[in-house]
């Protein structure tokens, strides 16, 4: 019937969409008629198309109708057939999996790795990024954010001028000493505007929120307690309202208790006190930028409207007070949905990790598909028998897919176990290092995700092998003996899968390599001080007891004296904010006698208040002049020591010693010395210009960190130091006792977590890739046993066989490497924001990754190659 065959596409449609006998007779009829028609003219093709579409459509409609409609016993028959068939397939699949335990275990574990890692990553992503905040209408809450806190005057301007906001609140996190209720301790809470509770949409469960007048200084001696604090410290006292307690040495009256379920986004606060606003206090109102601002959009406003208004507020502020204080932050302030503002810094890393783990799943699928294909080789006979007994191809495909779905579900179930353990292992990292990390867990959403991923992968890895196995040429299989040569087509699919696995592994390994190199470099960054051998702790003398500056300085002087007597202590000093702790103070400065040219923004410098001992304790190098010492007191001329970068920025090549700098609008000091730069903000950030003042000259703060240098392990002196401090005053709480090394380590925990997870995923990818290469080569060898046997019998050399078999791995691995490198070169850019001093296309990393993968692939193919070379020709030829 040459030339008489119907058009290909509709013919294939028939093949795919109809089943069994139905397909045979309909396709046969149409082909026969087409053969006659074709002589009649070109309308034959159109006729054929029309007939096919109507046949297919009609048959499917009929099939659907028969499943739904009672027709004779149509329902029972049709429905019963389907269920019976499904149940049969399930039973058959289970039996078939149980018959091949090693295959089932390997494939199940491979899938479990993929599904588990994906579910774990998804639950993190879901809990942190996707789940809405739990406050009422949380999507209306925005954070007004310019990268840094705002001043209270700016807060006031936003409150009065931005009409898109229904309510605006400022807050500042506070760590205050709780005394008189159990052991003295430091509680973390917040000072908030009275509007705070309206912004969050939550009011106290007991009592009331703050009244507007309680934001005035002197009227702010009230507090709202968190539910856990009320239960834990006050024994759920029902009479709590009106009771007074001492916070920060100040008597405060409890006016409310928050509901049990309420928790702020970032950390569980224990108390809320009013944020006082005093427009007459310039330094507090306009001179300090420490307030974070939240707002609730009014019902008809959009964030864009709010942003437009914020911009005009910023312009207004700049015109009002151009010289004294310009809040540079408000200029870039934007209203950002609260959830976004909270999690934006972890968003790229999380999506990246989910992407990475998705690639791992892809490799796992390729591996299982490979295994199934290899299995299929052994099952051809089984399928041939079933087909010759009348099972249709579609029936066999459905049955094989049921089997792979079962496998997928097994992998999914194991994967959920794996995800739970992975989350458990990561718990402390998540709680400390990731916003909302403590709420992450396996819930029904994660289960749903795992289930769908399992189903999806089952189809992904099962479809190709199922189609191939079910349509195997059954006459040749039945004839017995089986194939003796290389199965060209199948090993082609295998090798394509291997190339894919290698390519994906290259991408993941390249990413991991870049991140590892970056964190390696990061760990070698000189922070500008020595952290080893240093213990740190936070001392918070209650402000009520130590309200006089003199009493506070005296307290710290005595603490240092007593601590220095503790055996093993070689130096000690105090500092306002420990480096790398994410809190710092900065302010604008001007160099005296050097006016800024018109329009130049005033430069910023960070401010540290320290006691003289800190230089020796942290081993900060003094570059010139003199360091702060005991002679710098409130009544002596104000001096400050500046950092190298401030000296360079403010004075260029001039000698800074003896020059004067102005700050805060009220302070003018003489530069007495220059010290080396400290990376205050983080190892990956350049040191910022900085000024050090003596606490004894400027006792402006009440809570200070004490740093103690010792000769041995700093943890050994914890007890001695605590006793020495408490011997002075029992009621001063000691908190955050950690070594400086730990502080440093914690500062990079974010990037280390990302690096750790990415490397873990890349490691799994490498493992699966190697297993894949091994599997394919081993399979090829097993298929070619006969051929190799013959060649050995003909005198082939041992080495030649090994080389030849390993050579089979070279092409797919090589193709995979090339594809992977190309993909890596074009995709590692997405890592850029996470890399420190490493280029996304770092040649060294790519070279290492390439050679490592090559070596791993060769190693994986070596063992089956050796097995091939040790084939005993006599035995192998006799066996058939």
């Amino acid at each position, binding site marked *: 019937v040459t030339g008489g065959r119907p058009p290909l596409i509709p013919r294939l449609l028939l093949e795919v969409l109809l089943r069994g006998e139905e397909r045979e007779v309909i*396709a046969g009829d149409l*082909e026969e008629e087409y053969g006659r028609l074709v002589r009649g003219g070109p309308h034959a093709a159109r006729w054929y198309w029309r007939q096919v579409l109507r046949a297919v459509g009609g048959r499917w409609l009929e099939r659907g109708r028969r499943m739904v409609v009672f027709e004779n016993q149509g329902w029972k028959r049709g429905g019963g057939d389907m269920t019976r068939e499904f149940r049969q397939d399930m039973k058959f699949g289970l039996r078939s999996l149980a018959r091949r335990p090693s295959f089932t275990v390997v494939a199940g574990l491979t899938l479990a790795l993929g599904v588990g890692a994906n579910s774990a990553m998804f639950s993190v992503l879901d809990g942190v990024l996707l789940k809405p905040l739990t406050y009422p209408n949380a999507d209306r809450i925005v954070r007004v954010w310019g990268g840094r806190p705002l001043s209270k005057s700016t807060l006031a301007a936003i409150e009065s001028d931005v009409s898109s906001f229904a309510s605006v609140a400022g807050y500042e996190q506070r760590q205050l000493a709780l005394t008189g209720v159990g052991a003295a301790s430091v509680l973390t809470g917040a000072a908030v505007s009275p509007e705070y509770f309206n912004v969050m949409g939550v009011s106290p469960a007991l009592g009331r929120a703050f009244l507007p007048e309680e934001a005035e200084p002197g009227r702010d001696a009230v507090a709202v307690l968190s539910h856990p604090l009320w239960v834990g410290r006050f024994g759920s006292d029902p009479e709590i309202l009106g009771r007074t307690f001492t916070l920060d040495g100040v008597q405060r009256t409890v006016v409310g208790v928050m509901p049990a379920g309420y928790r702020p986004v970032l950390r569980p606060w224990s108390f809320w006190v009013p944020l006082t606003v005093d427009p007459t206090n310039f330094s507090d109102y306009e001179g300090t930028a420490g307030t974070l601002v939240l707002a609730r959009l009014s019902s008809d406003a959009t964030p864009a409207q709010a942003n437009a208004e914020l911009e005009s507020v910023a312009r207004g502020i700049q015109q009002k007070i151009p010289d004294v204080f310009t809040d540079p932050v408000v200029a870039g302030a934007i209203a950002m949905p609260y959830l976004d503002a909270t999690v934006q810094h972890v968003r790229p890393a999380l999506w990246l990790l989910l992407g990475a783990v998705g690639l791992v799943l892809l490799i796992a699928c390729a591996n299982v598909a490979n295994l199934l294909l290899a299995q299929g080789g052994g099952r051809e006979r089984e399928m041939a028998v079933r087909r010759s007994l009348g099972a249709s191809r579609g029936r066999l495909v459905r049955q094989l897919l049921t089997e792979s779905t079962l496998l997928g579900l097994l992998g999914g179930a194991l994967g959920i176990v794996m995800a739970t353990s992975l989350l458990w292992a990561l718990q402390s990292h998540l709680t400390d290092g990731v916003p909302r990390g403590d709420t992450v867990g396996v819930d029904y959403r994660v289960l749903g995700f795992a289930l769908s991923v399992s189903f999806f992968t089952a189809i992904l890895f099962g479809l190709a092998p199922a189609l191939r196995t079910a349509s195997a040429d059954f006459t040749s299989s039945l004839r017995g003996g089986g194939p003796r040569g290389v199965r060209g087509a199948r090993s082609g699919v295998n090798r394509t899968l291997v190339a894919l696995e290698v390519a994906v592994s290259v991408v993941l390994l390249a990413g991991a390599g870049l991140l590892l190199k970056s964190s390696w470099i990061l760990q070698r960054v000189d922070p500008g001080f020595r952290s080893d051998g240093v213990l740190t702790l936070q001392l918070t003398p209650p402000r009520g007891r130590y309200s006089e500056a003199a009493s506070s300085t005296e307290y710290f002087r005595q603490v240092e004296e007593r601590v220095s007597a503790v055996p093993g202590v070689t130096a000690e000093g105090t500092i306002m904010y420990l480096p790398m702790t994410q809190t710092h103070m900065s302010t604008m400065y001007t160099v005296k006698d050097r006016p800024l040219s018109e329009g130049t923004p005033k430069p910023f410098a960070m401010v540290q208040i320290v006691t003289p001992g800190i230089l020796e304790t942290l081993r900060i190098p003094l570059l010139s002049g003199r360091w702060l010492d005991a002679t710098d007191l409130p009544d002596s001329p104000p001096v400050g020591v500046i950092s190298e970068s401030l000296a360079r920025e403010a004075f260029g090549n001039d000698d800074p010693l003896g020059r004067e700098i102005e700050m805060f609008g009220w302070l003018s000091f003489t530069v007495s010395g220059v010290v080396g730069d400290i990376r205050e903000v983080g190892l990956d950030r350049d040191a910022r210009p900085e000024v050090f003042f003596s606490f004894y000259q400027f006792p402006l703060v009440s809570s200070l960190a004490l740093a103690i240098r010792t000769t041995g392990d700093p943890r050994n002196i914890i007890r001695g130091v605590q006793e020495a401090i408490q011997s002075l005053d029992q009621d001063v709480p000691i908190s955050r006792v950690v070594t400086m090394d730990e502080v440093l380590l914690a500062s990079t925990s974010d990037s280390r977590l990302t690096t750790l997870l990415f490397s873990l995923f890349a490691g799994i990818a490498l493992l699966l890739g190697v297993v894949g290469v091994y599997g394919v080569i081993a399979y090829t060898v097993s298929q070619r046993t006969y051929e190799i046997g013959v060649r050995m019998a003909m005198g082939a050399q041992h080495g030649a066989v090994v080389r030849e078999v390993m050579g089979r791995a070279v092409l797919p691995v090589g193709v995979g490497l090339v594809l992977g490198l190309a993909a890596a070169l074009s995709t590692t850019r997405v890592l850029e924001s996470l890399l420190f001093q490493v280029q996304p296309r770092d040649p060294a990393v790519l070279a290492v990754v390439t050679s490592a993968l090559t070596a791993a692939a060769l190693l994986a193919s070596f063992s089956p190659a050796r097995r091939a070379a040790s084939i005993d020709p006599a035995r192998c030829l006799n066996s058939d």
Partner: protein
Amino acid sequence: MSRALGGFELLVLLALLHIDEESYGVPIRREIEDRTGREASTGALYTTLERLERRGLLSCRLGDPTPARGGRRRKLYTLAPAGLEALRESYGAFTTMVQGVEPLLRLADAPDGGRP
């Protein structure tokens, strides 16, 4: 078998009576098309054949593959006794219903029937 035959079912069964040789899909479809001038779809034909078969009105067997069909087999149909009975029943009902109204039908048929 009390359910009356549908229009297309009737056509299919009658086509089987007309065909002398082996009756399978192709000749049945041709018969209907040639006699009624309506294009019948193969899909619909088999849906109907299957339904009639399930009702026991016809019986079938698989034939041999032929090259013209791309090596596929034919399904050969014969009218079962129940099928003949059903046809008779339908015919009886039809003639009873038609009695006395033939002239009207001829009239209604006129524009078409008048065609040469």
